[in-house]
């Protein structure tokens, strides 16, 4: 099976600025990959390389076996830039029809994608009457038209409210179920809401992580937080038994490594009626992301405060 995107040891230098260094990344057909990184990490640069707008200063990229920017490669790819302002004087339908024609898509595709992004009712209104969420959906409609094999979405959900964001990911999940690969960028894992197959993290132009989310969570091996609510009057003895810290007169909280989790939980269940409730919290996506984007140098906060003992 040929990869849709195959990047090998890609480097990109803008005079003195090294935007990307030795990046190797594959995207398989139908796969959804999230590209994460802080501002200036090199996400947009990677997209521009994939589109063939710029040429890498090191390494190579191929799109479904074609050179980026070639006609064959451009037929495969669709793009939604970080910021796009469509001509205000045009209607939504006119905008989508324009890109449909450029891509050689069938005319009935226009109505189909407008329907998919729920813009049918607003389709004949001018773009300057659209809300931010509607504009973003129009951008997606433009990218979806013509059944691309690869969608490149540059920070598609930044600035959207949680509900629009969720809707956006549902749409993307739907296209990828039909075999379209999706490479989208974002600057936080929590924005993704664990919706992508794979996560690649860029830090200062280098790829510091690449794998399924669960794998990254294991790799980071961040402590797990266990909170125990003791029965009335038992908080002292519970604390003495399992350690950790008392956070109020009824609860004890402790952090432990992944591998210790079951041992501690069985100890807690051994306390019987002294324990009223147990709450186990795995590291949040944000904490995992922060771990990789800081390369583990800075302690993740929860580790700092409570897990040093």
């Amino acid at each position, binding site marked *: 099976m040929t990869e849709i995107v195959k990047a090998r040891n890609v480097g990109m230098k803008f005079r003195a600025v090294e935007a990307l260094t030795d990046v190797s990344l594959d995207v398989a057909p139908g796969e959804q990959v999230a590209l994460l990184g802080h501002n200036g990490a090199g996400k947009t640069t990677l997209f521009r390389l994939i589109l063939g707008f710029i040429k890498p200063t090191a390494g190579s990229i191929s799109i479904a076996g074609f050179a980026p920017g070639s006609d064959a490669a451009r037929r495969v790819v*669709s793009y939604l830039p970080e*910021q796009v302002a469509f001509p205000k*004087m045009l209607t939504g339908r006119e905008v989508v029809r*324009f890109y449909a024609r450029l891509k050689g898509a069938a005319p009935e595709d226009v109505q189909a994608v407008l329907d998919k992004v729920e813009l049918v009712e607003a389709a004949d209104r001018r773009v300057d009457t659209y809300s931010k969420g509607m504009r973003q959906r129009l951008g997606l409609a*433009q990218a979806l038209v013509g059944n691309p094999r690869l969608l490149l979405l540059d920070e598609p959900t930044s600035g959207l409210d949680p509900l629009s964001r969720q809707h956006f990911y549902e749409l993307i999940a739907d296209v990828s179920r039909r075999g379209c690969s999706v490479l989208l960028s974002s600057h936080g894992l929590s924005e993704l809401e664990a919706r992508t197959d794979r996560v690649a993290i860029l830090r200062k132009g280098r790829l510091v992580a690449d794998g399924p989310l669960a794998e990254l969570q294991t790799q980071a091996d961040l402590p797990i937080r266990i909170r125990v609510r003791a029965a009335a009057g038992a908080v002292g003895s519970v604390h003495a038994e399992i350690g950790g810290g008392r956070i109020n007169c009824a609860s004890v909280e402790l952090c432990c490594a992944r591998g210790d989790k079951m041992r501690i939980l069985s100890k807690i269940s051994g306390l019987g009626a002294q324990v009223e409730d147990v709450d186990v919290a795995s590291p949040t996506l944000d904490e995992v992301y922060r771990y990789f984007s800081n390369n583990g140098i800075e302690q993740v906060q929860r580790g700092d405060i409570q897990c040093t003992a």
Partner: protein
Amino acid sequence: MHGVITIAATEIRIGLRNRWIILSSLILLAFALILVLLGSAPGGEVKTDAVTVVVASLSTLSVYLVPLIALLLSYDAIAGEIDRGTLQLVLASPVSRGSVLVGKFLGHVAVLAIAVSSGYGIAGLVAFFANGAGEAVALIGVGRLIASSTVLGATFIAIGYIASASVRQTGTAAALAIAIWLFAVVLYDLVLLGGLLASQDGFFARAVFPWLLVFNPADAFRLYNMSAIDALAVGSNLGGAGSALPLSGLATMLSPVAWTAIALGLSTVILKRVRP
């Protein structure tokens, strides 16, 4: 080819809804009507056909307004689209950069042709009927004016693309466009006049000036229209200098046509190097 037509059609749509274009077309129409009314005022000495007089004054109006409308259409074509992210979308689809530019050019020229023909067409018809239906030949003069104004506009549209493709910000492109207009339409003639006054031996007037006059597409346009309507009857400013011109008649229009071709070629080369 498909891409060229698609882009041209969309540019026409956008241009016809652009309020600056509408406004400047209305100004063109208003000026044209004022000139018609002044030209056909009763009591005026009517030596030549009134429509011909109107065509003469309209061609002077064209020299100033048509390049302005043209640059207004084109300065934003590349820089603005990069700014707004839409050029990236177009270039991500399988159309060549050459087609993008040709499509925009055809669309913008069409918008300009619509603006010019409606303005001058209405004014020409008003003049024609206000004078109790003059000679039909005079209407051909109006047609000639519209056609040559469109060619002049096409030249400045193409020159505007060079400005738009060479800079990254729309604001810079706009400033460049204004500078181009000011130089080609206003300053250039002043410099030539200065040269005429300064050169005492007449060498400049004989050997250099005619070439410089034809070199500027706006002056070439003026020369063509003056020669076409028999400049002697109406009188003109620079064209009446009496020098032997290197080009005459319709051949004068070779200057704007050549400028258009060169500017389109150059802006395509620049656009091919743009890294959006």
